[in-house]
């Protein structure tokens, strides 16, 4: 068979494309497969320009620290935590988009489980901190 995303992820992407909060989606291998228009503002690049990104590219492209500006481990990044532990994860971090702008954002990430118990990836929302 030819490769195709699971229908659960297709429907999540379609829903994300209509929502106005930033949403980020990764597949079960940790590859970034989609983020929506509002997320493009936070990440500093259009998805059509960035395209799907392999897991090993992500850490190099996006820098993150805690709110004191100290480096954090990859596993402290909620999307990574949700991917590895397969549990919901939330944290406020300082994040640098590809436009070079640092922003404080809340990130809530949850593992996506499809029919028949299939682990399909991670679905995350980004909320820019007030002030």
């Amino acid at each position, binding site marked *: *068979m030819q490769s*195709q995303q699971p*229908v659960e992820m297709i*429907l999540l992407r379609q829903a994300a494309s209509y929502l106005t909060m930033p949403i980020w989606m990764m597949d079960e291998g940790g590859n970034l497969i989609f983020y929506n228009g509002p997320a493009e503002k936070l990440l500093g690049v259009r998805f059509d320009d960035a395209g799907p990104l392999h897991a090993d590219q992500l850490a190099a492209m996006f820098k993150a620290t805690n709110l004191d500006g100290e480096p954090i481990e990859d596993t402290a990044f909620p999307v990574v935590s949700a991917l590895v532990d397969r549990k919901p994860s939330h944290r406020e971090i300082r994040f640098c988009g590809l436009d070079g702008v640092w922003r404080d954002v809340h990130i809530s990430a949850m593992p996506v489980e499809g029919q028949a118990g299939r682990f399909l990836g991670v679905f995350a929302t980004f909320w820019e901190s007030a002030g």
Partner: protein
Amino acid sequence: MKFKLWGTRGSIASAGPDTVRYGGNTASVELRTSTGCVVILDAGSGIRTLGKELGSEQRIDILLSHLHMDHVQGLPFFGPLLDPEVEVHLWGPISTTHTLRERLSRYLSPPLFPIRVRELPNVVFHDVPPGEFSIDTLAITADLITHPGSTLGYRFAEDGSVLAYMPDHEPALGNPRFPGVSDWTSGYSLAKGADVLIHDAQYTEEEYSTRVGWGHTTFSQLGKYATMTEVSRLVTFHHDPAHSDDFLDEAHVALMSRADGYEVIAGKVGLEMSLLATD
């Protein structure tokens, strides 16, 4: 393998003078393997007449795409289901909450129906997850497709021939640029390069505008989908109960005029087709 359409209508059986040629019975398709085994796709009202025509089969497999009424309402009227000499295997989409048997029991029990599932003499239930399995000589791939509730599309391969079956499907849901990118299109892997695709063709564009999310496809969307998936022959299916024979004739003329690289075949009751083995 070869197949025959016994029920082509969607939503509700709609017998009458306006639906004679395309058929008024709901979804049911007879699929025969090269060795003669019977696999039935869906158990709409068309399965009743199919059951009357079957011979002395000792095993019959029924693959349900989903459990909406128009796909299961014929089940208790399928004669072999009540024959203890016939082993009937019922396959349907897996659920996170209830087994296939439990879900079908909601229909096959009073007050909706007088016969209970436990009274059926020789039935084996199979909860089907997305993935691959086989029946006789058929290599079968099942995958979830866009339709309300857990719904499977199927891809059948035998001797190099491929039949894809997606009777209820809304691949354009939420996709204003449909068909868009193939790997983000529901059912693409199932239909890709199929010799025959039997597919939902329920709505006109005008009808769809007020029925987005109901789980079905327009003629126009279907044409684009057939082009994207590079199927050879497209058989329309799941006709809207409000669409008369004459209306469907016109819709098919329009669909055929736009066909790009595939043949359109009107899914009329009684249609039979063989998929020849390739060397």
